[in-house]
């Protein structure tokens, strides 16, 4: 049975991954498992930018795919970038098996505000659903409440919900066909 697998990247809190599981399981109607391994992201570190190259991590994640993988979602605590942009909240292979989310910029503390674990957890779920949405070929959604809405700042993430709108949900229906084994 194919699964959605969560891969901890660097120093990620286990509790966070556990909280994330039921949310993504419900949205994508697929069982979710946290992999018992951890990927060290240091190979993707850029000294000058003091950030980690998202695409390189995504590429390295391929080696963690198994026969049981439906999708592999990496959860990183480090700050991610792609060369042309100052940062990214996450990256995904459009219609592919791997996606990646960074929790670094989702914390209130980064913006000089008191820590808010509940809000932080919500943001992680929304970004996880968002990046996984790209792996099932969803592009950004015009509905600002949909998890697939484009968001380049935490304020926009907070505006949206952790679920997909009806249109995006309908588009994800073929996932069941994927689960039957036709994806790979």
């Amino acid at each position, binding site marked *: 049975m194919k699964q959605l697998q969560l891969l901890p990247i660097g120093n990620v809190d286990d509790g966070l991954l556990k909280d994330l599981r039921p949310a993504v399981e419900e949205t994508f109607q697929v069982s979710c498992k946290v992999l018992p391994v951890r990927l060290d992201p240091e190979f993707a570190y850029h000294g000058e930018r003091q950030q980690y190259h998202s*695409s390189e991590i995504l590429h390295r994640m391929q080696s963690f795919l198994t026969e049981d993988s439906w999708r592999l979602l990496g959860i990183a605590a480090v700050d991610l*970038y*792609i*060369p*042309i*942009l*100052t*940062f*990214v909240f996450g990256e*995904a292979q*459009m219609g592919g098996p791997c996606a990646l989310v960074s929790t670094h910029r989702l914390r209130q503390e980064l913006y000089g505000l008191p820590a808010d674990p509940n809000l932080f957890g919500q943001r992680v779920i929304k970004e996880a659903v968002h990046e996984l949405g*790209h792996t099932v070929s969803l*592009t*950004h959604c015009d509905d600002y409440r949909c998890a697939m809405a*484009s968001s*380049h*700042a935490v304020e926009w993430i907070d505006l949206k919900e952790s679920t997909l709108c009806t249109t995006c949900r309908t588009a994800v229906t073929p996932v069941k066909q994927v689960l039957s084994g036709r994806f790979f």
Partner: protein
Amino acid sequence: MSTLGKLLIVDDELTVRDSLGKWFREEGYDVTTLENAGDALTQLATQRWDVALVDIKMHGTDGIELQRRMHEIDPELLVIIMTGYASVETAVAALKNGAYDYVTKPLDPDEIAHLVKNALAHRRTTQENVLLRETVAEVARPEDMVGQSGPMRKVFEAVETVGPTDATVLITGESGTGKELVARAIHQASVRRFHPLVAIHCGALTETLLESELFGHEKGAFTGAQFRKKGKFEIAEGGTIFLDEIGDISLKTQTDLLRVLQEREITRVGGNQTIKVDFRCIAATNKDLEKLIEEGKFRPDLFYRLNVFRIELPALRERRDDIPALVNHFVRKFSLAMNKRITRVAPAAMNQLQEQPWAGNVRELENAVERAMVVGQEPELKEQDFIFKSQVASNGSSKTLEDMERAYILRVVEECGGNQSHAAEMLDIDRVTLYHKLKKYGWTRTPVETR
């Protein structure tokens, strides 16, 4: 699936092309990535994009040059320049060349997302605006020029032929034949119609003033020039300059004008910097320029520059068949302006109008109708509302102001059926004054023949 818009990314770095292309695709754009200017220009010959993101530093042709050449192919393409570092020079160079904006690498995701979104909204608004203006232009055009006669049909054909070209036009014809109207029609029919038509009446200005008007002047160029002033050629940038009464300009100004027409650049009076100008020139005159050349008063080289395409406007006496249409056009125009419900002209009056010499051409006819509209009564203009040449000539006594006043007052009193109170009201004078005037004219209650 519909996309938010078509984006072109030109950058010689593969990582930039891949990452930015992927990022914008996820955003919902239809993205094409190309690695150099040559490919971009080749593809632009057959394809169109809404927005292009162009790297400033590339092997071979750089982003600034690429932007300039892209605009030659597609002037509506919105180009955003991506620079490696923020510098005023590159930003100014990019924006001066017509770039929509510039961004500094690495790009802030929120900033670039908004910038592209705004660029697309700007493009759509511009396209809608052009469509609206075209619609308005279509509706507004036929009203301006009136006439169905053979000579006028030739004029319309000429306007239609030369309008869409960028050729210089010389319009000749007697005073009052509508040369400026034809210039406006040519401008309207041209691709420059959304840019200004700047008219200058050369004959009305002294040589010094005309130079300053045409070419502008720098601060302190002459006494009273307290500020720098742009000339008409600069104001007409992208549009049309209409030089009326070109036969009245001095030989010195003719020389300066010739240089502008040849070089397409001007120097402001008192300045030494040349300024490139883009304009179409339409000139007009009621003078015989060939004769002026023979007399040494007009430069032949300037004449040949102006006389690329010539339109000769007929005098009104050469197209009398158009007079009823013109009169009706002016009646409609002034009834709206004066808020009077005069809708027609009595046949006898129209016959008379067609027989007048009209030495002042359409302008004189328009003035005659305007005057008649002031004095005329609803719903029809009658013979007596006009002052006809034959009438003035045949009545030798109606030459002084007093004679004119007498004739007019008696006519108004007659129209009011001898009611002096009503007539005084119409004439806007008090009743006693009217009584004294009528007494002086020997008026009795018997209807008076005024003509």
